């Protein structure tokens, strides 16, 4: 029996010729990630356990993105702790206000992940880097600590679900709609403990940013990781970002999958995930009139330049409805700068949006756009759990940048064709 992409990468990192689903292995890590919420817990554990050194200063990255710029004294104290640790151990890839971006937009942009890597991150959306053909998964702070100290960790080898991608997205349908459609189909635990493997002739029609968005939300289906087959799009993206050599792992022709689905991109329609689970995916033939109070365009799911271009395409020459606060958050400094050069920020500001420095902020109800009781938001973020963006009686509707921008203009949940 052959191996899946994920199984091949894990076998290579465990020094084994072959692994099979369910097997427990120790694997070497290429990168260990933490943010300003999870790293302090890892540092406390590191000190408590009496470790005195890290495994490799170039293979640990700390990204101060959640409650930054520091939202309060406690958040400032947590960042200070991370900064001091990074300084003490001379950690190369430490990112703080001024050069920071949202971790899962920043690391690919900086070329820190290449195909075939094994990456753990103390952030559940670490699965994003599967877009690059890497094995990448979210873990907790103790795992991060062990990873920092030992450069390795334990994994249970996952089985996989295969998604055969065919066709091409229609205008105003986006990668976000594809992944919401998939989560709606298989449920929030539909891929529990397993890999989601994306391949097929339709991949060539998905940009790297599309893939990053889709892999990002693999965790919302419970998956251990999402992973895309490496192709010319991947290789083109990596050019100029890294000079690291990488190995491309392809699934064996006889690899075993628990389930297989074909996703025809040409059938994907604008989709909205209703409160309070990402699996509550609906298309516009099944959405009543819902007045909204806020729109958030950003996050590790949809804060990249193509997302901002999509939002700007809708918002250009229009005004955000008077009942709506629209917040746009470019995910990295580089994206911010590109958006500025392309005139996107001008479009946003002229249409009445607030534009923020990169931060996870409102996505997790941290700061920079918290909802009051009874308020509703359309967000390009990834979770719509109870209280996720603020009060427990507020509601978050997940959607693509097209739908979010159209909703901002309409003042209610709307699709692009309603306002264009």
């Amino acid at each position, binding site marked *: 029996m052959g191996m899946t992409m994920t199984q091949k990468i894990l076998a290579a990192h465990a020094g084994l010729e072959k692994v099979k689903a369910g097997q*427990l292995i120790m694997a070497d890590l290429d990168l260990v990630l933490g943010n300003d*919420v*999870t790293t*302090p*817990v890892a540092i*406390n*554990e590191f000190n*408590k*356990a*009496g470790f005195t050194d890290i495994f490799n200063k170039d293979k640990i990255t700390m990204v101060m993105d*959640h*409650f930054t710029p520091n*939202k*309060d004294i*406690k*958040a400032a104290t*947590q960042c200070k702790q991370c900064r001091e640790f990074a300084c003490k151990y001379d950690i190369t890839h430490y990112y703080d206000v001024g050069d920071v971006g949202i971790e899962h937009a920043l690391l690919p942009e900086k070329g820190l992940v290449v195909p075939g890597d094994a990456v753990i*991150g*103390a*952030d*559940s959306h*670490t699965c994003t880097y599967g877009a690059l053909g890497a094995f990448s998964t*979210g*873990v*907790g*702070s*103790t*795992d991060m*600590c*062990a990873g920092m*100290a*030992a450069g390795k960790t*334990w994994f249970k080898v996952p089985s996989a679900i295969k998604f055969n991608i065919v066709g091409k997205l229609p205008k105003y349908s986006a990668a976000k709609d594809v992944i919401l459609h998939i989560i709606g189909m298989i449920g*929030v*635990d539909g891929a*529990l*403990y397993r890999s989601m493997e994306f391949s097929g002739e339709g991949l060539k029609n998905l940009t790297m940013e599309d893939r990053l968005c889709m892999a990002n939300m693999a*965790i919302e289906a*419970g998956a*251990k990781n999402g992973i895309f087959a490496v192709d010319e799009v991947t290789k083109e993206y990596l050019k100029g970002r890294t000079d690291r050599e990488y190995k491309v792992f392809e699934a064996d022709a006889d690899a075993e999958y628990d389930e297989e689905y074909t996703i025809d991109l040409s059938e994907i329609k604008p989709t909205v995930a209703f409160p309070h*689970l990402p699996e509550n995916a609906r298309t516009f033939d099944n959405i009543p009139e819902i007045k909204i109070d806020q729109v958030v365009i950003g996050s590790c799911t949809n804060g990249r330049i193509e997302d901002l271009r999509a939002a700007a395409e809708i918002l250009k020459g229009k005004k955000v409805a008077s009942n709506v606060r629209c917040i746009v958050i470019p995910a990295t400094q580089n994206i911010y700068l590109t958006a500025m050069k392309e005139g996107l920020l001008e479009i946003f500001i002229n249409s009445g949006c607030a534009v923020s420095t990169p931060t996870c902020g409102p996505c*997790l*109800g*941290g700061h920079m756009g*918290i909802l009051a009781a009874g308020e509703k938001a359309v967000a390009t973020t990834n*979770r719509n*759990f*109870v*209280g*996720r963006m603020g009060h*427990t009686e507020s509601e978050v509707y997940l959607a693509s940048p097209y739908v979010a921008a159209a909703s901002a203009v309409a003042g209610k949940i709307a699709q692009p064709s309603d306002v264009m």
Partner: protein
Amino acid sequence: MKACGKVHKYGDNVDTDVIIPARYLNTANMEELAQHCMEDIDIDFAKNVKKGDIMVAKANFGCGSSREHAPASIKASGISCVIAKSFARIFYRNAINIGLPIIECEDAAEKIEAGDEVEIDFDTGVITNKTKGESYQGQSFPEFLIKIINANGLLNSLKEN
């Protein structure tokens, strides 16, 4: 090893945002976080929970973020074991790594009700419902994980090796 206590019962897909809301994550002090544990779905949990109590939920417990603050605040609140039909994988991993006993058991997750007095034998995986006079067989851990659990968490087990 055994755990025994009164049950706090929840449903499917209890996510880490309701276990410990992100608005409190500007601290890593787990005792402080325990004061807010579960408050977005069970406002009185922190007030009612007693040391040794048991949490029972249905499918996909702990889905969402990777915050270790979730199992850690449950542990700090005094909960001695979480029983669920299934756990989200990062939560599962985190619970083992920090030494919060968890056990998967569909039967128990369905039949146990809030307020029941329940005992868990970790060696056998047998869950006894003293209130109802029933018992359920939970899934036992693979040996690899038992080593981590017996070493009282991942870091100790790494140091032992």
